[in-house]
């Protein structure tokens, strides 16, 4: 029941051992109470807090909880949030993701200085974001100019605009088709298989029975 105490090593261990983002998020949120007890005045603890909250923030993003991520920034010690560079980076990232400014998202992820312990999770978020965006554009667009697609996916829009083969190849690898004549890419929607739940079948008949009972 009791968690091992929060420390930089423990955090690193959690990040590497978590098999899914959801699990990572759950484990980290269990630590929030403990983090709450630490003081941001103490410089050692402040460092740990910064790392903890940044990691926690990314675990929100990785599980697509953008509102929660925003709310979590409000729960952090506000003094720390204002002065800690990592957390400031997080805020910038949040703003870009929230407003769907794709260029900025990639810029923040790639160009801002992230501390070493954070780098793995930043990279995994970049990959996650790219893939999520790819799924979304494949659903939203029937035809898209390579430059636009490149901007969404954080590729170089200038070379993409010239329809260079690497960009196009990258995208055709996802099943997209390339129309040489019109210079447009036709994405193929990624259909996600909804999770099947056998319970539902039984419950549905219960509902119908219930409705039947009410009627009489």
């Amino acid at each position, binding site marked *: 029941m009791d968690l091992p105490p929060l420390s930089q090593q423990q955090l690193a261990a959690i990040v590497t051992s978590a098999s899914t983002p959801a699990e990572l998020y759950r484990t980290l949120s269990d630590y929030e109470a403990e983090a709450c007890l630490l003081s941001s005045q103490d410089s050692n603890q402040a460092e740990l807090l910064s790392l903890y909250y940044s990691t926690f923030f990314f675990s929100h993003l990785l599980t697509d909880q953008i509102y929660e991520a925003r709310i979590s920034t409000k729960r952090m010690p506000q003094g720390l949030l204002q002065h800690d560079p990592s957390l400031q980076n997080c805020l910038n990232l*949040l703003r870009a993701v929230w407003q769907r400014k794709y260029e900025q998202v990639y810029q923040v992820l790639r160009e801002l200085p992230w501390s070493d312990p954070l780098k793995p999770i930043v990279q995994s978020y970049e990959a996650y974001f790219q893939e999520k965006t790819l799924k979304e554009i494949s659903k939203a667009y029937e035809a898209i100019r390579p430059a636009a697609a490149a901007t969404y996916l954080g590729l170089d829009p200038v070379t993409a605009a010239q329809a260079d083969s690497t960009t196009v190849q990258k995208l055709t690898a996802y099943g997209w088709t390339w129309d040489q004549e019109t210079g447009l890419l036709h994405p193929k929607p990624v259909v996600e298989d909804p999770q099947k739940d056998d319970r539902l079948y039984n419950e549905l008949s219960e509902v119908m029975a219930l409705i039947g009972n009410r009627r009489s």
Partner: protein
Amino acid sequence: MDYMQPDAFDTASSQNAGQAAGVGSADLENMSLNVTGPLVKVDDPPKFELESYIANYTGRTRFNRLFLIGTCSTYLSVEALKAAVAEAKSGRDVTRYERAVRALAEVTPNDPEAIPDTNWADRMKKSVKAETDRLEHELRGYKNNLIKESIRMGNEDLGQHYSQIGDLSSASKAFQRMRDFCTTPTHIASMLLKIINLSIERGDWLNVQSNVIRLRNLQSKQEEQAKNQPKMSAALGLSQLHSGSYLDAANSFLGTDPSLGDSYNEVLTSNDVAVYGGLCALASMDRNDLQRRVLDNNSFRNFLELEPQIRRAISFFCNSKFRPCLEILEAYQADYLLDVHLQRHVHTLYSRIRTKSIQQYLLPYSRVTLESMTKMFAPAASALPTNTTSPFVQELIGLIQDGTLDARIDLEKNVLVTNQVHLRKEVQESIINNLEEYTREAHLRVLRANIIQAGLEVRADDRKPSREERKPHDDRGKASEGGLWNVFSRASGV
């Protein structure tokens, strides 16, 4: 439950009354007082010839019609106003003479006829005054002698006189006073008809309706009833037309007996019945009903023969030839705009007919090109590109957004696509919605019952159950004012 009903009924009917009276007073009285000037200007020449047109009418409606044409039609204004001046001068109503002259002076300031004949006016005023005094005096004499028939006739004469000089409200009062002195159903019928005609001129449509009903319920001889029927139907139709219930109006006009002939020329002609009835039917009935109840209606055919273009328009509509139908209506628009009763309704009637045509046109298709629709319904705009700037497309957008058309516009292929129904999906969605709705409603009601059962109803703040209970909650409330409520300030943008 029962005692609620009369109440609800009352409010509904009084509302109606207000509306109808409002419409009425805005209608004819406004026009006869000429406060704001004509609202409609008609520049196109009408198809009728003024002289023969006005020859169809008798009585005060002649002046009203002439004056309306004179003030609304730019093409006929001088001719019509001159006729109106002459018409007024032949009568005894000085105010309408003055009005006509003033209106004429506005159009042709230099015309000799535009100078008011003050001499005549003064003379007429004196003579009118003398006549009024004489009639009032006579009536007083009859009253003293208590001879019913004389009192009735005295009132009738007085009413007649007041209506001639344009004092319509006094006229109406005089006619109303006849009521107690009528001895036979015939008398009552003639009195009611007078009140109806007067109410039509005053634009008091509610009064028209109630008196028509009175007349209809009158126990009188068969032939008497048959004689009055056409007038009653026509008057009722007029009042329904003016209160905007076009379907009812159509039914009343359709039910008017052709024996009407020219017997009601002080109000309307048989031609008018054909036009009013035809347009109202076209605007309110579907193709089936139009065929069955209008075109195949033997008695109404007599009217339609007088106005063949209405007949043609209706049969075009029934045969789904919407373009020619609309073309006919457009061609006669100027005529109808110069009609004293139709003027205010032409626009609504036309747009309803048009909307119905568009709906009927779309019925058999799943998609129609905007181009062909423009050709059909807005040939003037067919040269323009069919995008959102086109007025016809804007019209369609309006129709879709107010739910008249169940279709959507495809601006990529420039077609109008009718919406397909996914029955299964819709049923599923409505089930979910109902379920949600039910659950919510049930929750609210159960909570309500339980709150009341627990004695937790909200009550006035000064009637607190006890002091000590109150304090902690007050504190809590205060704390929340300070801290909690700020939670949401600027919650949206990061």
